[in-house]
């Protein structure tokens, strides 16, 4: 570890590798998952879903289902059309964005296979499922557009009434923004141009806990338990969508089994369960199957990236032009249109560009809608720039690490205003890279690579680099406002001092595996000087934690954690007058440390007054200073002034069996700079998990549709998640440059591994087989694709030839029809 430990007290909790408070219940099977809920008289729901990607619904015959055993209610779009409202999209990225009304239950037309057309409520889950199969739906099939590029050509329309598949076009241009020059000038003046087109395949978040929702309509309020990342946003959206007073809705996210952005949504099924509970007056539960989840929970990524990198012969990069096509799927979900935009500010990454232009076209297709998936926009950006830097290095015959160093922002140049208009507050790319090289044995591996190349070894070795940065801590509300997002980016916290001296922390962040209960306890223990075990963290229930903006975008610690710090500081401030009163001292003479107030100058042996004792005095309220309310509790809402910018250097060694195309990871080293660390154990865990998700994009995962729009990777048999047997143990380390945007100096770590690792892996594979003329392999880099790249003459061709007329038809590195997607 190269972390510089804070020199102070051994008693500090922040920085300790505390074992998690959450674990006891999780390792003994006492967890409260939504699907565990059983309420008296509860009904079970089953959805009827469209098998067609695009069809008119001509008739829904529910008679057989209604008569099936145990069935209480069957509803279709006809029944619900006046009650269900429209599912929300909170991010209209442009004024003229085209948006299709998104009903929870399709009324007269379905726009993707898996869309709900009817719902059955029955006394048991089995009866509901049996009856759902008796709902007889007649469809008139309509032409469906499945492929993103074809959709962009507007030949077949996903929604004929929109007249186009283009939802919106969003542009950032450094010349217009005043943050840099005109990219066309850089391209014109370039000595070297690297032009590539990369595919970000469609992925499925695949949280392990299938989604589940329970709604209890009995009592004064509707209570919804649901496996969501966003109970607060959901509550508001339920109110806005259904016209129910917000005060009549309580949303509880109990233990939630993973999200990765996949549960950052207001889902049709949540609305439907609510409506069914309201209609029947009974508690209702819906729990999805895995196939249902893969089909209908939102997907992620799915972009084509057309990239032009301008550089000088000496290796200086000068400009970057990015043209994206982003697949929205059939509808715009909660933040669907904004996901590619989150990448817009990161394509320039850690490098100094003179000019930059980003243009994204958001396109509708007849597929499951896309939305946030771990990293959301930033993995795509990081992949593009890190692949391009390797391509430039290859073109110039330079070492790819050295070329990066030539172009990156030096540690003495922070704070640094980027060409994309961001202000990077801190970082040290040199330090992280130096440490990573050392741990990786970079030079030795390069030597081995040379030996294998020379001997014509059947198994070639490749080294992949990714020097990434990202932006965390979504987000300064002003920035979100400027990007037309429908909400702010603040977070709320409360600290409640209980009479017994125990502390309750209420946070608006809603954890689903991140360990907030542990980390927040560490923060508060330090702030208030109370024992770690005396802090109880409450979250995920809008009645307990009424204000919050939930958990996504690596925001919890840097925004929510800072709110906790601020609330704790307020508690101290509130306690001061009472402490002064009891100690018969002047407020200005008080000092607070390690949980006690002492009087400055009263000597080291003074007893002082503990916070717990003050809490009891406040509870009794027998003798408070005049004007003091009998409460030490405090609230704080924090709105960040800037993002935070974690970075790191990831190095990956891949072995490629040139006979079969099989790839094997040999070693993976990452050195991340995420600022100060609250709990290194949790941080390492976040990194490991992120790495495997990013590696999985590079090697294994892809949501594949056939020509008719049927998801053919619709179960875990075909949507190939890696197992322990497919992965390796990683080497992780950290360097620290504290963030300046919060008191903790923390930067956020939830998405780092996932953002950084994908290009590291693909760069390594391409590096291994580049001497065979390979310049790119479409993700996921299946053995077949690797083999075809090697034996099909690769995707070679001189860069300058392909560079001249921009993106000439049939030029290399564009659509790779032989290897794109699976073919059936």
């Amino acid at each position: 570890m190269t972390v510089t430990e804070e020199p102070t007290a051994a008693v500090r909790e922040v920085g300790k590798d505390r074992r998690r408070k959450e674990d006891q219940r999780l390792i003994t099977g006492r967890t409260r998952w939504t699907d565990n809920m059983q309420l008296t008289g509860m009904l079970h729901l089953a959805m009827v879903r469209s098998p067609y990607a695009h069809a008119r619904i001509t008739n829904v015959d529910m008679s057989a289902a209604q008569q099936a055993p145990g069935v209480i209610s069957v509803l279709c779009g006809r029944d619900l059309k006046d009650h269900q409202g429209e599912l929300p999209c909170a991010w209209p990225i442009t004024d003229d964005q085209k948006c299709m009304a998104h009903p929870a239950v399709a009324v007269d037309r379905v726009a993707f296979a898996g869309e709900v057309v009817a719902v059955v409520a029955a006394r048991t889950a089995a009866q509901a499922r049996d009856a759902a199969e008796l709902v007889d739906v007649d469809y008139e099939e309509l032409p469906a557009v499945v492929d993103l590029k074809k959709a962009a050509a507007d030949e077949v329309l996903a929604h004929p009434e929109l007249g186009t598949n283009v939802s919106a076009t969003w542009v950032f241009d450094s010349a217009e923004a005043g943050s840099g020059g005109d990219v066309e000038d850089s391209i014109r003046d370039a000595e070297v141009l690297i032009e590539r087109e990369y595919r970000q395949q469609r992925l499925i978040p695949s949280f392990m806990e299938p989604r589940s929702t329970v709604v209890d309509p009995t009592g004064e309020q509707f209570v919804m338990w649901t496996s969501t990342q966003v109970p607060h946003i959901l509550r508001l959206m339920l109110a806005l969508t259904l016209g129910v007073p917000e005060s009549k809705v309580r949303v509880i996210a109990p233990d939630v089994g993973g999200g990765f952005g996949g549960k950052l949504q207001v889902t049709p099924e949540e609305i439907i369960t609510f409506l069914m509970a309201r209609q029947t007056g009974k508690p209702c539960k819906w729990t999805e199957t895995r196939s249902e989840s893969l089909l209908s929970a939102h997907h992620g990524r799915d972009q084509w990236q057309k990239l032009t990198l301008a550089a000088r012969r000496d290796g200086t990069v000068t400009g970057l032009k990015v043209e994206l096509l982003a697949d929205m799927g059939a509808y715009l979900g909660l933040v669907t249109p904004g996901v590619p935009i989150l990448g817009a500010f990161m394509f320039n990454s850690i490098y100094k560009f003179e000019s930059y232009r980003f243009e994204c076209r958001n396109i509708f297709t007849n597929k499951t809608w896309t939305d946030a998936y771990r990293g959301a926009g930033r993995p795509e950006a990081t992949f593009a720039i890190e692949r391009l830097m390797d391509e430039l290095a290859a073109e110039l015959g330079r070492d790819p690490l050295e070329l990066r160093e030539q172009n990156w922002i030096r540690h003495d140049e922070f704070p640094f205003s980027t060409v994309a208009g961001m202000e990077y507050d801190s970082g040290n790319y040199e330090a992280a890279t130096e440490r990573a090289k050392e741990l990786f044995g970079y030079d030795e591996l390069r030597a081995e690579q040379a030996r294998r190349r020379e001997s014509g070894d059947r198994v070639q070795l490749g080294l992949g680099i990714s020097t990434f940065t990202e932006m965390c801590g979504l987000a300064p509300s002003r920035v979100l406002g400027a990007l037309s997002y429908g909400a702010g980016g603040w977070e709320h916290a409360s600290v409640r001092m209980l009479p017994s001296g125990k502390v309750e922390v209420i946070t608006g962040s809603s954890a689903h595996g991140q360990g907030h209960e542990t980390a927040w306890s560490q923060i508060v223990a330090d702030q208030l000087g109370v024992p770690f075990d005396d802090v109880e963290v409450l979250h995920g229930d809008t009645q307990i934690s009424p204000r919050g903006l939930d958990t996504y975008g690596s925001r919890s610690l840097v925004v929510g954690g800072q709110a906790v710090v601020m609330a704790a500081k307020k508690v101290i401030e509130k306690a001061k007058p009472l402490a002064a009163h009891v100690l018969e001292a002047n407020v200005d003479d008080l000092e607070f440390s390690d949980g006690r107030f002492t009087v400055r100058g009263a000597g080291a042996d003074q007893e002082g007054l503990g916070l717990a004792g003050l809490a009891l005095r406040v509870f009794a309220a027998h003798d408070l200073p005049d004007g003091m309310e009998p409460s030490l509790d405090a609230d704080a809402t924090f709105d960040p002034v800037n993002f935070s910018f974690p970075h790191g250097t990831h190095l990956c060694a891949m072995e490629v069996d040139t006979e079969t195309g099989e790839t094997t990871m040999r070693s993976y080293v990452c050195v991340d700079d995420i600022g100060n660390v609250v709990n290194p154990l949790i941080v390492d865990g976040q990194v490991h998990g992120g790495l495997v998700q990013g590696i999985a994009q590079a090697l294994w995962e892809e949501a594949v549709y056939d020509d008719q729009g049927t998801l053919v990777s619709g179960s875990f048999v075909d949507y190939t998640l890696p197992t322990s047997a497919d992965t390796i143990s990683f080497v992780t380390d950290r360097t620290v440059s504290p963030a300046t945007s919060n008191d903790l100096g923390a930067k956020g770590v939830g998405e780092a591994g996932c953002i950084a690792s994908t290009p590291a892996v693909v760069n390594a594979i391409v590096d291994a087989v580049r001497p065979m003329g390979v310049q790119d392999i479409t993700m996921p880099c299946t053995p077949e694709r690797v083999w075809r790249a090697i034996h099909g003459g690769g995707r070679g061709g001189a860069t300058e030839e392909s560079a001249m007329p921009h993106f000439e038809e049939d030029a290399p590195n564009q659509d790779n029809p032989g290897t794109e997607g699976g073919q059936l």
Partner: protein
Amino acid sequence: MTRISVRVDGVTYSDEVEPRTLLVHYLRESLGKTGTVVGCDTSNCGACTVHLDGRSVKSCNVLAVQADGHEVTTIEGLADGETLTPLQEAFRDCHALQCGYCTPGMIMQATDLLRENPSPDEAYVRQHMEGNLCRCTGYHNIVKAVLQAAGATATGGEQA
């Protein structure tokens, strides 16, 4: 309906069940053993792993009627009161879980693994945990925990 008698976590239960009832649903809904969860419908994920007569099985892939006359152990039957098993301890100590949804299945499978081979190496652990999917941990700390419980140390990567 078929009458079955099953011993689960040391207690014998006798119930009428529909033949189509999966063992996992019987455990969860009839017996309230909600520690065992369902993660998929193709028996790939292993989240529902329990022991049937001492060997790990996927309880979504067994009918409750097939458990008639047999003995089932779930995650809730592992710890002896407040005393956790060494494997449970190791999972906590190594931070081998995040959201925790796969954890009961992981622990049940790892328990069986260590009974079969008390001194596995990393490759053996990785190979024999292949029937359990995790989306949070990247497996790194799960493998570490199993090795730690076995008294061994990881041979591959490490925290530098």
